[in-house]
Structures are given as structure tokens and as C-alpha cells.
């Protein structure tokens, strides 16, 4: 089922590891082609679109999932800071490839650099006892400055445009990049599924979480590292500059209408997927940059959510339940 030409082109050691995922991508492509036959939609006919759509759908789940925890800790900007350091990682990857012919995907170097930056931000905040705007801004600018400098030094030897990293591009998602994204996606989903209790507690009430025996510092580190993974994964079609929007905008929309935390997670994923699908479709047919269109759609949905939330509050005012009485004596669970 695997295209032999495609296989022959993939020779790096990483491709051996990713082989099962290439097979998965082939299978996804078949599904999409069948979907194109049924619907007659041109958008679903091309292999590059198959990969772009898959990447988009994964972004639509992982970005708001992590974003929900970030936004409610007022850490919305950390995604932006990490995206810009990821750009430095891309630049380092391109630089190494052109100077010593390393042959490694720039997305992999981006993962490494963004993870290091994430840990640095976290350690600085632990040492200074606060996430501060200034250290975040310094990390952000340093990352971007390093990226642009490396790329400008290297300009002669570069065969790829950096535009795809800055603004994202539907048509440049390679099989390798899509496979790397699937790995990141699996890591993010598994870690969140495993540590959801702890992440929720730390997000909602850090001190009480610490008192209850949860190591807040460790979960903060996990959180920023997951953010780094999301940012690098989403960068492919969102671009460095707009990637943070997917962490924030659907989450902000969901918290306007959701009645519980679980609902907020679910709604934010639905809103993000809606933005991604509509955004990719509009970008494809209008020939626009996908990242920009996706964010504009997301902001549009957010605006509707704000209005919806206000209406909900206005209509829900009349039901005011009575407070119950305190009845400690009926329980036997307390004390020793």
C-alpha cells in the first residue's frame, strides 16, 4: 500500500522510526480520496491537502486542550514566547543542515530548542516566584533575534523559504513533518490524560494543590513542555506568528458559554476544529494563507460566543436556588 517512490525518497534514520506512521498517513490519504470521490470536492483530492487536513485536525484538539490550562492560569502569552523560540530552533536546524549537512528536520531542532526555552522560562519563574512579562518578553525576542540572525547569515545557502515557518503553509507539510506531528500529538494526549487531575488542581488553586501533596513545580514544568510541543506541531500550518492564537482564542470562546470545566474543554475543541476546517477550506478556495484565515474564523466564533454568553447570563438570572442548611452531625466521615 506504501508508495515505493515515496519510500525511496525517505532515507534518513528518523524515517525508519516513523515508518508505521507513514503507513498510517497512506491509509488516511485513501480515506480522504474516497471522501473526495463521494463529495466531489476538489479540496480533498490532493495528497498535500490530506496531510494538511490531518495536521489541522490534530491541532484543533491539542492546542485548546493545553490552552485551557494555560489561559486559566493567565499564561496565555507563554505560547507566543515559545513559538518565537521554536523559530530559532527552525533556524538552527536549517543552519546545521546547510553548514554540516546534518539532514535533520528543522521541526525536530525546533522541538528541542522550544523545550529548552520552556524549561528556562519555568526555572526563571520558580527562582523569581512569578511568571513575569519581562522575562517572557526577553525569551521571545531572543528567540526571534537568534532565528533571523542565523537565517540572514545563512541566506546564500538556503534553498527553502522561511515564509512557511513564519506564516505556515498548507502545501509544504511533508510526510515526515506530518508523522512528527502525530508523535507529538500522541505524547500530548497521553500526558494530559494521565495527569489531568493534577493539572486541573494546579490550574485552579496552586496553593491548595501544593498542600494536598501535588508537586506544583513539576506539573508546571510538564505544562510548559507540552506547550512547546503543541507550538512546534501547530507551527506547520499556523506559522510562528499566529500559532499562539490557537492556544487562546477557542479557549476564550468556550469559557464564555461552558457551564463546567469538562464542558469548557469539549467546547474549546469543537470551536477549534470548526475554525480549522472552515479556515482550511476558505484558504484553499480563496488562495489565502491558512493560518491567518483560521485565526480570523476563530476570532469570529469567539465574538459570537461572547454575545451568546451574555444572552445566556441574561436569561439564566431568574433561577436562584435556596441555600441548604449545614448538617455536619449526619455525617460520620470526618475526624478520627
Amino acid at each position, binding site marked *: 500500500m506504501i508508495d515505493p517512490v515515496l519510500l525511496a525518497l525517505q532515507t534518513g534514520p528518523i524515517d525508519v522510526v516513523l515508518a508505521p506512521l507513514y503507513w498510517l498517513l497512506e491509509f488516511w490519504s485513501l480515506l480522504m480520496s474516497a471522501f473526495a470521490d463521494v463529495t466531489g470536492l476538489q479540496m480533498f483530492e490532493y495528497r498535500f491537502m490530506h496531510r494538511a487536513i490531518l495536521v489541522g485536525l490534530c491541532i484543533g484538539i491539542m492546542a485548546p486542550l493545553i490552552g485551557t490550562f494555560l*489561559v*486559566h*492560569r*493567565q499564561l496565555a502569552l507563554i505560547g507566543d514566547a515559545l513559538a518565537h523560540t521554536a523559530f530559532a530552533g527552525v533556524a538552527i536546524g536549517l543552519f546545521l543542515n546547510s553548514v554540516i549537512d546534518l539532514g535533520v528536520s528543522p521541526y525536530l531542532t525546533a522541538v528541542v530548542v522550544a523545550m529548552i526555552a520552556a524549561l528556562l522560562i519555568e526555572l526563571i519563574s520558580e527562582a523569581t516566584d512569578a511568571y513575569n512579562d519581562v522575562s517572557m518578553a526577553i525569551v521571545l525576542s531572543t528567540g526571534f533575534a537568534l532565528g533571523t540572525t542565523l537565517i540572514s547569515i545563512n541566506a546564500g545557502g538556503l534553498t527553502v523559504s522561511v515564509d512557511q515557518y513564519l506564516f505556515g503553509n498548507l502545501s509544504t507539510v511533508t510526510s515526515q513533518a506530518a508523522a512528527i506531528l502525530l508523535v507529538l500529538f500522541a505524547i500530548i494526549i497521553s500526558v494530559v490524560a*494521565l*495527569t489531568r*487531575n*493534577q493539572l*486541573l*488542581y494546579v*490550574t*485552579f*488553586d*496552586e*496553593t*491548595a*494543590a*501544593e*498542600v*494536598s*501533596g*501535588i508537586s506544583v513545580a513539576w506539573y508546571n514544568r510538564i505544562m510548559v513542555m507540552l506547550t512547546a510541543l503543541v507550538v512546534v506541531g501547530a507551527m506547520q500550518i499556523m506559522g510562528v506568528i499566529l500559532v499562539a492564537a490557537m492556544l487562546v482564542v477557542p479557549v476564550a470562546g*468556550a*469559557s464564555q458559554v*461552558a*457551564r*463546567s*470545566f*469538562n*464542558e*469548557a474543554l469539549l467546547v474549546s475543541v469543537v470551536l477549534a476544529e470548526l475554525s480549522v476546517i472552515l479556515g482550511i477550506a476558505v484558504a484553499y478556495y480563496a488562495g489565502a494563507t491558512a493560518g491567518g484565515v483560521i485565526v480570523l474564523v476563530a476570532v469570529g466564533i469567539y465574538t459570537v460566543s461572547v454575545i451568546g454568553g451574555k444572552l445566556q447570563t441574561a436569561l439564566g438570572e431568574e433561577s436562584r*436556588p*435556596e*441555600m*441548604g*442548611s*449545614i*448538617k*455536619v*452531625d*449526619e*455525617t460520620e*466521615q*470526618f*475526624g*478520627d
Partner: protein
Amino acid sequence: MSAHTDSQTAVEGTPSGREAVIDIADVSFGYTATPVLGDVSLRIGPGEYVAVVGPNGSGKSTLMKLMLGLLEPDAGAARLFGEPAHRSDHGSRVGYVAQHASASKEMPITVREVVKMGRFPHVGFGRLTASDWEIVDRAIGTVGMSAFANRRVTQLSGGQRQRAFIARALASEAELLVLDEPTVGVDVESVDAFYDLLEALHENGITIVLIEHDLGAVTDHADRVVCLNGEIYFDGPTEEFVDSDALVRAFGAAASSLGDTA
């Protein structure tokens, strides 16, 4: 309440088997070179209802953090249930209620979801079982919030919100409840109901440590008062505190050293 008024003497002569819940011995602490607390010693036994009072910047919250192991003392030892507080693994035995939840006010989360967190020390990475949920719902019922279980916390009044946090501590089956100025910003009627709840929990054997600025509440409810301002000015039964000059001395000291403690 009367059964507990002589609890301090009971702790001082702690008989074997009745370990102190909190044992602060000769503790000094400072965030910078200037100490916030100097040579503080305090033992709190099971079932006591203790209020810690003092002016702003007197080290009340610092003392609380040392008790809970959130800070490590520069000198001396802080023990919680007999183990060094900062290394103790007693998460489920301690309930903590802050002045305000530190999280974003916009966070969409229901009362039930907040109280559920009380079970996290018990379930770890796992899911809550049916019996865990039963405990959660019982705790919500205990604080009289059943009708609000599925309300967003952001829609509650200050008093209702604090009840939800108490319910979280109950759901964790805490033996020690530590409250840091829990009634700041809460309306008067809710404050009364809130102290009634604490009273009822106290009668059920839960140890209560109340960090409080409102002296009226303290003298009305707690059995034992610790008056603090960098050091302990008074530690004894509430009735004796009312008649003592500890307050004047502690708050007077605050007035003269206001600048360095902030």
C-alpha cells in the same frame, strides 16, 4: 466547645499516642535577611480550634505556610502529623481554604468539580469511583450547597464560594483544616453561617487553624488564640486573651515597625 477549652494544657502534656497535629519548634524565617518570624514555637493538638491573629505583616501567613510545609524554616523545625512539614505526605489529611482561590475568576468550573479535587490525593492518576463521588456529594450536602452543585463557582457569592472550598476539604477527609482569612469580602450573614459550619466541624473532631484579622470572629469562636507579630505575644485560652494586654502590645509593635515587615 467547652470540652476543648483546656486543650492547650492537654497538648503541652501530650500523652503518648496523641501526637501533635502541628509542631513548630524554635522556628525562624525570613524571605530576605530581615526575619519575619523569630524563634516561634507552637504545638497544636488534635481537635483544637486555634485562631492566629496579628496585624498586617505580622507573619501570620508565613507561619501558616511553614505549618503546611509550603516554606522551609531557616532555623528550627516544623512538623506536621509528626513528620517534617515540607516533606510530609499528608495531603489528604490537610484541607486548606485560602482568602481567595488563586485561579482565574473567569474559569468555568462547577462546585462539584471543585469539591472533586478533594478526592485527588486519594485517586492519584486514576478516576473517581462511585464511592468517591458519593463522598463528594455528601460533602456538598454537609455545607448546604446541594442546590448549587452544578453551578459555576464564578456565579456564587463570596460566602457560598468559601463553603465550596470547605466542602473540598471535607471531601478529602481532612483532619486538619487551615483557613487563611476566609471571610474577607464575604457578606455578614454568610459570615455567621460560615462560622457555624466551622463550629459544627470542630465539634465533629476536626482540628481547625484559623488565620484571622477580624478579632470579633476570633473571640466568638476559637478556643485558643495565638497572637503574633514576628514573635508570639500570647498563646492561651480565648477568655484569657480578651483580658490580656497582648493585643495592644502586638499591634503597638506593629505600628512602630510597619515599614520593615511589609
